[in-house]
Each structure stands twice: as structure tokens, then as C-alpha cells.
């Protein structure tokens, strides 16, 4: 069973300190929600853990089953079992979705999937997320609507089967139907009980579909309060005002 352990993580962007000591442990079978106001550093946490070059680690550790991810390259982290569903997936001209997915699955599994098996998995995955079959031939994220991009992120999640998934505002910009489809995908992913989910969100809406075990409130670059699902209900009623004032 896998565990992601974030210990006293400190991160800066261009000499500006964003994360000021984050501690968090996500075990397989658990779903953690990180909630917080805009600019509190939630996305920085996601991208720093994944290894985006823009972020400088100034202290701390991120351990996946005891291995320090911060010592690994971006692709090594992914192959170690970390997945980041991005808030704004980038368009990559000339690279088809099917080519990209096959390359990613091959890299993560360490061997090329059998063509027929892969085609079957891909079709099943796309059907489950109501993604049109023509997507496989389109260029990666090019001309995708917001909802299509997010479905495509969850398709990758289901195909790559990571140990720990970090979902960065996967719910933002989705209408209710798309939110339901995407949430069902996340729930399929965690149904095995062998994977951990770290769900970053500004709104409580997605938590009605993807029930968290733990809720953490993020403000000023660190976790300022922790609790169970009931904490989300309180945030829904009261908003973040108390936290933004405290951290300001």
C-alpha cells in the first residue's frame, strides 16, 4: 500500500516564498481535499510535487513510499506512481491524443501495450467519460473545450493507474453534467482502495460527488486547519474569510 508524505515543504517562485512548510500524508485508500482561497498556494503545492521547473524547492521532502520525489526528474516521478491532473492542460500541436497516450502508457508500464488491448482499454475509457471516438485522432488538447480537457485528464488518470493522484482544480469550469462524468471517473479510480487522491479545489461542489475522508484548509502557503468532511460543509456556509484575514 502506497503513501505520499509531504514533510515541511517550502517552495519559492522567482525568490518569492509561496509554500511555508506544508505537512501532509496521503495513504492509499484515502481521499484528501485541499481547500483554500485563490492565491493561497494550493496549485503551487501540486506543481512543485510534480516537478514543474518554475518552482524552486527551498526546503522539505516529498516521499512516495520512502523515495524522495524531489530528487527525481518530472518523468521519473510519474513513473514512480505520481499523477497530476492539470488545471490548464497545455495544447501540443501535431501530437495526436492516441500517440501521446500510447507513449505515456508505454513509459509508465515500462513496455509497449499490446495494440489490440490498448485500443480496447482506450475505447472503454473514452466511452466511460463520454469522450467522442474522434478525439483519439485530434491533436493533444488543441481546440478542446474546458470540459473536454478535464475529461481527457481523467482518461489519462484511468489509463495510467498511478499510486497517488493529485487533482488540481479539476472541477473548475465544468458544468454539472461534466462534473458528474469527471467525478465518476475519479471514483472508479479510487474504487480499488489501493490508490490515494489529493483533490485541490476552491469550491465544495465536487466534494458532493467525490467524498473526501479528510479536508485541509490552505492559507498563506500552509495548512491552517484540518478536519473531516464536516469541515467542507462549514467552509460552504462561512467561506474563506476567516482564513484570508488571519493570513493577511
Amino acid at each position: 500500500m502506497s503513501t505520499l508524505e509531504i514533510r515541511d515543504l517550502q517552495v519559492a517562485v522567482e525568490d518569492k516564498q509561496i509554500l511555508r512548510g506544508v505537512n501532509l500524508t496521503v495513504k492509499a485508500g484515502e481521499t484528501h481535499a485541499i481547500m483554500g482561497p485563490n492565491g493561497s498556494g494550493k496549485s503551487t503545492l501540486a506543481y512543485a510535487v510534480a516537478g514543474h521547473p518554475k518552482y524552486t524547492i527551498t526546503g522539505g521532502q516529498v516521499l512516495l513510499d520512502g523515495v524522495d520525489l524531489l530528487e527525481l526528474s518530472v518523468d521519473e516521478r510519474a513513473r514512480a506512481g505520481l499523477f497530476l491532473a492539470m488545471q490548464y492542460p497545455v495544447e501540443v500541436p501535431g501530437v495526436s491524443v492516441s500517440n501521446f497516450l500510447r507513449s505515456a502508457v508505454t513509459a509508465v508500464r515500462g513496455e509497449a501495450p499490446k495494440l489490440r488491448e490498448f485500443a480496447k482499454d482506450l475505447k472503454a475509457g473514452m466511452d466511460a467519460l463520454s469522450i467522442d471516438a474522434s478525439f483519439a485522432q485530434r491533436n493533444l488538447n488543441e481546440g478542446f473545450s474546458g470540459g473536454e480537457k478535464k475529461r481527457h485528464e481523467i482518461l489519462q488518470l484511468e489509463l495510467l493507474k498511478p499510486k497517488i493522484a493529485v487533482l488540481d482544480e479539476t472541477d473548475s469550469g465544468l458544468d454539472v453534467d461534466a462534473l458528474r462524468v469527471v467525478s465518476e471517473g475519479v471514483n472508479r479510480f479510487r474504487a480499488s482502495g489501493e490508490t490515494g487522491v489529493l483533490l485541490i479545489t476552491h469550491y465544495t461542489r465536487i466534494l458532493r460527488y467525490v467524498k473526501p475522508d479528510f479536508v485541509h484548509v490552505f492559507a498563506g502557503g500552509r495548512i491552517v486547519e484540518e478536519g473531516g468532511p464536516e469541515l467542507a460543509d462549514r467552509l460552504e456556509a462561512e467561506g474563506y474569510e476567516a482564513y484570508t484575514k488571519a493570513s493577511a
Partner: protein
Amino acid sequence: MGLNEKPLSTLHEKASYELADFAVPTGREEEWRFTPLSRLKGLHDGTAAASGGVNVTVEAAPEVTVETVGRDDERLGKAYVPADRISAQAYAAFEKATVVTVPREAVASTPTTITLTGAGDGVAYGHTLVKLEAMAEAVVVLDHRGSAVYADNVEFVVGDGATLKVVSLQDWADDAVHVSHHHAQLGKDATFRSFVVTLGGDLVRLSPSVSYTAPGGDADLTGLYFVDAGQHLEHRLLVDHSQPNCRSNVVYKGALQGDGAHAVWIGDVIIQVEAEGTDTYELNRNLLLTDGARADSVPNLEILTGEVAGAGHASASGRLDDEHIFYLQARGIPFDEARRLVIRGFFGQLIEKIEVEELRDRVMSKVEAELAG
């Protein structure tokens, strides 16, 4: 455009068969300022006497006539008059010309491949004429290989309603120098498709141009180049819209890697007063893969009529996008493979436009080899 600058429309007016009408370039002229003259091995100043050989072989479609003719053949030089010093030098010095003729209404069943192989480091001058009579259709490949110092002119005469698709592959050895003009003259409702691939050579300067003799002409000029350390690959395009209701589309893409890799792209499009209803677009993109590489990209669009259907240009040179690489790496794809995928994507849609399948595969594998090396 500055007041003292010469309008584009007069750039091509300097045209002559006489070498003496062109001064030896000094490098300060607008048309020569990007080209390293010292590496031309004398092609520009009259010191490069023909000495070596470029061996020309033609594998022709059965419907096509191929001739090797002397310089007095009256069909030569009808469509194109040399527009710069080296072009005039080549015209003054070539001994034999290759003439490919596709008869009226003939449809060539296979590509016609003209292979030009440099035999060593000698100097050679050449001339090629590809003539499609009315309603004819053909695919012609110019395949440049080996080592040479070579200057030539190529005339494509596309008759009324004819369709000519050309692939010109500059796959020279590392030390080759090649300066070439490709001129296409389009008749009424003629279609011209040019695909230029420049990979090899120390210095390649290729100037494709298009003119129209009647309305309805349609030209697509596509190019791909991969510039390695120390290479100078220059493409200078000129589309002269002098007839109404013609179309042109120019798309050139290049990647550069290594110290001293230098790409030059000049895209001149003129829409003359008479050319109402013109539809034209030109695009150049450069991907700088390493430090020390340089791309100069200059699109020029001169519109002298108020009645165009569409006219635009775009030029962008930049590095590989870190966000693209990050996205692919975040899915487990190693850096080198992510880079290959993105570059392949950058070129991929272009390569698919190459008419001949074997060539498509050859160009793809060449690009792959460049990426691996």
C-alpha cells in the same frame, strides 16, 4: 517601410541574362546581407570556374519525355530571367540542360525523379526545365546528393489547367555549396505544389519564385529545413501576383540546433494593381533547439490593389515550449522522447503533405536521425 527604401515591387525588376548586368555582391546589398559570401567558394564573383561534375540522372514516368540539350535550345530561359548575380552566372556557364516535357493532357503515372549527384568538390553549373503542357499532370522530384559547389536555375512551366507537384530535396553532404533559383510560371487555372526539404550542405541558398500569366493560378509553397551546427540554409521566396483571382500559400518551418546554425527565410509577396481577388498567405516558423543557433525571418507583403480576397503573413521563431515538455514528462515520457514528440509534431503535419510516399518516409527518417544525433 522607410522613405529611402526601395519598394518591394521593384526588387524583381532587375532581371537579365547578362552576367555583366549584375555587380559582384559585397554583402551590403539587401538581397545578400544574410549570406556568408566567403563560403560561396567564388560562385558570386566569377572565380569559380566549372571544373567538377554534378551527375544528372532521370528516372521518368512513361508518359514523360526527357532530353539533354545544349545551351542554345530555344525553349530555355523563356519562363525565367536570372534575377541575381549567381543566377546569371549559372545561366552564363551551364553547358547541358535537362528538359522534361509532359505532353498535353498526359497524366504521368509515376513520379519523375531527377537525381543530381555531386561527384566531389568541383564547381558545376546547371539548368533544368520542366514543362507541363495544357491539362497535363505530373509529380517531379529533384533529389540533390553528394558533394559539390553548384549553382543552377530550374524553370517550371505549368500550362493552362495543368497540375505540377514538385519535391526538391537538398540532401547534400556536409561540405556542399548550392545556390539555386526555382521559378514556376503558372498558366490559366494551373496548379503548382512545391515541397522543399533542405537538410544537408554547408551553405544552401534556394530562391523559389512564382509568377502567373493568366487568372486562376494556384500555388502552394511548402518548406522544411533542419539546420545543424555551422550550416547556413537560406530560403528566399517571391510570389508575384500580377493576374486577378490567383492564390498562393507559403508555409516554411525549420528547426535549428548547434553552434552557428543559421537559417534565413525571406518571404516576399507582391499583389500588383491588376491582381484583384488575390488570396495569399505566408508563414514561417523556426524552432531554436539550442543556444548558438540563429534564425532570420523576414516576411514582406506589398499590396498595390484595394481588392484582395485575403492577404496575410506570420513569422515566429522560438524555443521548445517548456510547458509542452513538462506536460509530456508529467505523464512519464522521458525528456528526450518528449522533445522528439514535440518536434515531430511541429513538422509532422507538413511532412504528410509530401506527395510521394517513399520520400515522405525518407524525410521523416532523416528528421528522426537529426533529432537522435
